[in-house]
């Protein structure tokens, strides 16, 4: 079989440093909180959009929340293929901010569940943080990050 030896032409491919910089947010839900008006944020912000303070303190957000809105990806993107269905949701974290996340360990069925989302997850379902593979970076390494599953621990 013919096998090309020339490197593939790639323009503006980021180095692994780019994804590495956001590892605390992806693995541990590190957000921050405005010291002046106490609003919590995820992802971390550099300026508080409410009071324009630049004094923000990092905080690890509790890894629990409730589903606000749910949907189900039937056409996964490159790097996420190999599954027929990726349920995902907006989760309101116990500490305040909301996060967009894939849901794992939920039963989506095939066409079950009717309109509006995965079978066993609906508005109000309690979920908890897990760390799973996201996608392979353009520069090669695998990137991992948060996903959520129905809450087990109490």
């Amino acid at each position: 079989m013919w096998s090309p030896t020339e490197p593939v032409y790639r323009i503006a491919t980021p180095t692994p440093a780019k994804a590495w910089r956001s590892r605390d947010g992806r693995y541990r839900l590190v957000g921050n909180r405005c010291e002046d008006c106490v609003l919590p944020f995820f992802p971390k912000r550099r300026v508080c959009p409410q009071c324009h303070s630049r004094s923000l303190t990092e905080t690890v957000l509790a890894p629990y929340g409730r589903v606000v809105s749910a949907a189900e990806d039937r056409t996964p993107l490159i790097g996420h293929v190999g599954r027929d269905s990726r349920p995902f949701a907006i989760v309101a974290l116990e500490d305040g901010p909301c996060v967009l996340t894939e849901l794992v360990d939920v039963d989506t069925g095939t066409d079950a569940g009717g309109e509006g989302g995965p079978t066993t997850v609906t508005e109000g379902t309690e979920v908890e943080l897990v760390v799973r593979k996201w996608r392979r970076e353009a520069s090669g390494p695998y990137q991992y990050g948060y996903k959520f599953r129905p809450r087990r621990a109490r």
Partner: protein
Amino acid sequence: MNGTGVVIAGAGVTRHGFFPSRDWKDLVVESAYAALHDAGVSPGEVSGGFVSVSLPETFEQQNLGAIAADELGLAPAAFSQVGAACAGGTVALMNGVAAIASGAVRAVLVIGVEKQSDAASTADSMLHFPDAEYEAPAGFDYVDLMALMHDRYVRKYGATHEAIAQWVVQDRWYARRNPIAIDYGRAALTVAEVLDSPMVSRPITRAACGRACDGASAVVLMRAGGAPADCEPVEIAGIAQATGPNVLAAKFGHPASAGADIAEAVPTEVAAKKAYAQAGIEPHHIGLAQVHDCFSVMGPLHMEGLGIFPPGKAAAAAADGETALDGRCPTNTDGGRIGLGHPTGATGVSIAVESALQLRGRCGDRQVPDPDIAVCQSMGGSNATSAVAVLRRPR
């Protein structure tokens, strides 16, 4: 205030669709020279321009302002590239209005162009617009983000999937009658066909998705009273842009959201209020609208942002015929993003072209009876930015 003092003197647009043999430069030249011809303005009179594009990386080319100017034979005119995701065309229009209003230039070309067919995958090509740290690498593209907005809109306001699907049926109705639309001449659609088409990201089906495609559009802007005597100028009565958080989940509880979340188009509401104030109009004066329905649910969201329908009511109103040709406010008369097609960088200009043609009474089978005031709106990102223009037939 009353108006910007700037008019669209001429408008041009290419067919929207997939053209593998045509380069972005072919599309730019066709639309720009159509606009110049329509205005009766000679190329040498143009001293500035703005080129809106959202995916210059598919051209493997940046600095499109200078390149377009030279390609058009207009160098050394002052041209620059404008980017605001899918709202870029309307933002370029706003830049053009400011340039004319400043008195620095007499005639400006505002051009939008896209070559989505040059991208190996349109879903992947648009991946630089969702958040680069927490959305795109986690596997979420626009259809996923808008699936959540669709779900939230249904849960929060009790809108039905059938009413939202009716939006697609209406887009096809207009697109069948628009010779430049990607769906020109195609058969009518039914709500059942929209809901039964393959699921892309539940609850959004394939038929409910905007059609990323190739196309270009252009307008010539001049000062009111300064346009050639034999052209048919359309007044830009007001134009404004607003922004919001790009990270979808950050819209919940964000100070700029003022209690709204992802079931409302907050930047559209902010930009519309500014544009209406500049034009001296109220939402009930609007008899024609073009809104950014890159997915079916976004049409109703933006109609509500524009104040044409109350929150949560637009999908039902559209399903009741209020946005049809004989309705209270005919909407997306060019077929919208779903029926006309969505060359992302061009869209914000294409909607101004359609509005201008409607106000001049040149739209044939899809002509709205005697419109006075048209509003056109484009969105960039998942409500990260929105731009609104109010166009008026000269009084």
